């Protein structure tokens, strides 16, 4: 976001004119905000089972704070279940555009009370901000499908819209996000917004990288990218494991294996 010259001028003027509460500096959208995270990199190892990422920072005490965690956006393909005879089968497909795999937002006060709808949409904050940013395939009931998409992701604990969850104390704020074990690797953004007078007055972004390392990385890379080598690896590993295990738990003499 490139600030327009007018905005810069205004912010300089405001900065000079008022050293008071941030309500008066709302228009600057340059309010300083500090943001820290407990992890910049999450390593997915065989022992990995999710991680709690702490987020904290400082901002003017009179501001509200919204913290958003989101993965890069991509198209998502869903199948629609319908009843065929007694069974529930996939009967149709629906394509969504611009869907984050994970989207979590927390704030010091309910978002609808502190942020105007235009600002929610501009910064893609909250349920309404997120909905407005997702594209739905033409010819289907947009609201119905968007709601369902959001509900499924919420059920998988990939989406959450905490009306609160950001703690304030003086200038500092703090919150945390639980990183699920099935979050795919990639670069995620953690953003903190200083909110005042129904508008975003400043924000700061941190990158959180999730990376499979060691055996995990090797196995999943091989499985996805080199199926033939992975197939050979899977078969050899099973043969080796079967042989080793049968040596360790050696069968009684004279007994023939009857797997």
């Amino acid at each position, binding site marked *: 976001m490139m600030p327009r010259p007018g905005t810069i001028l205004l912010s300089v003027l405001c900065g000079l004119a008022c050293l008071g509460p941030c309500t008066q500096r709302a228009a600057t959208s340059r309010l300083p905000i500090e943001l820290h995270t407990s992890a910049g990199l999450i390593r997915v190892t065989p022992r990995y089972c999710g991680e709690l990422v702490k987020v904290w920072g400082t901002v003017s005490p009179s501001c509200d704070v919204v913290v958003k965690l989101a993965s890069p956006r991509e198209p998502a393909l869903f199948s629609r279940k319908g009843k065929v005879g007694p069974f529930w089968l996939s009967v149709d497909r629906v394509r969504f555009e611009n869907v984050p795999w994970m989207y979590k937002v927390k704030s010091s006060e309910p978002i609808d009370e502190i942020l105007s709808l235009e600002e929610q949409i501009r910064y893609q904050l909250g349920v309404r901000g997120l909905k407005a940013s997702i594209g739905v395939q033409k010819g289907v009931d947009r609201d119905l499908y968007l709601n369902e998409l959001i509900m499924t992701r919420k059920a998988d604990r990939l989406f959450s819209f905490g009306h609160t969850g950001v703690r304030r104390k003086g200038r500092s704020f703090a919150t945390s996000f639980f990183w699920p074990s099935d979050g795919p690797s990639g670069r995620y953004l953690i953003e903190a917004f200083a909110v005042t007078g129904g508008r975003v007055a400043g924000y700061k972004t941190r990158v959180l990288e999730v990376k499979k390392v060691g055996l995990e990385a090797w196995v999943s890379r091989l499985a996805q990218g080199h199926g033939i080598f992975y197939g*050979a690896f899977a078969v050899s590993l*099973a043969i080796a*494991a079967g042989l080793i295990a049968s040596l360790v738990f050696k069968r009684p003499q004279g007994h023939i294996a009857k797997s």
Partner: protein
Amino acid sequence: MNIFLPVAGIDVNLLLIIGIGVFVGFVQGLLGSGGFLLTPLLIMLGVSPTVAAASGINAIVGASVSGTFAHLKAGNVDVKMGLFMLVGGIAGGGAGTIIVKILRAMGNLDVVIILCYVIFMAVIGVIMFVEGLSSRVKGESESPGESPVMRWLGKLPFRTHFKVSGVETSALAPLLLGGFVGVLAAIMGVGGGFFLIPAMTYFLGMPMQVVVGTVLFQMLFTSGSVTFMQAAVNHNVDAILAAILLVGTTLGAQLGARLVRRLKADQLKVAFSLMVLAMSVKMLNDLLVAPAFFLVELGGRR
């Protein structure tokens, strides 16, 4: 103690997976079949049906390797018969792998796998229940007699002699049996022993000892090639999951084999058949109950 499974994409309790392995191995050691429980138990644990089936067949590779060697050494493998079955198995496994790919793209693979298990476990459950009650477990395999299937197989062309088994039958018979089991291996992740052992005893009239050795032999190679094809085409094999399961099944098979003489197999069979029937009913119920959401994300995300 949790472990993250790289292909299944979930974290699970390590001891729980080993426990499933021990249980399945135990049942197998005790009753002679049980490998078919692997996939449904993994599904109930939260592994997606397609990964559960493909990893199950991967585990069967390891579970049949030591037995195959032992039977080869003892001369219990009809290699000629086994090779014919293997050709059928690879063809069937290839077809099954393609079916998996198509059904997965359509979004109905999970339903098909679960439905296959519902039917399959219902049949196995009923058979075991009846067998257990009529307590004819031992001495069952003597003088099979001429069945209609045997007569039909006898009319097929390409008759050939299988020396080790001491039978003469059409080469198409092992090809068809192997092909059928290959399709099942790809879709359901089962080795097929539960079907092949009675089929070869009754339909082909082979001696029990050779049947077991030959089935293990073809199972090792069929499951190996199906694992390979699934990994190459569908990327749904979790080798780590399979390796952990193997530790459990080997241990369980030992326990089962040691306890088999001390426990009453008939009563166990009845109890076990009830469990299999209950699992079948539970899975059927899951298919009939309306899903929580009418949208389900199509795979390929992990």
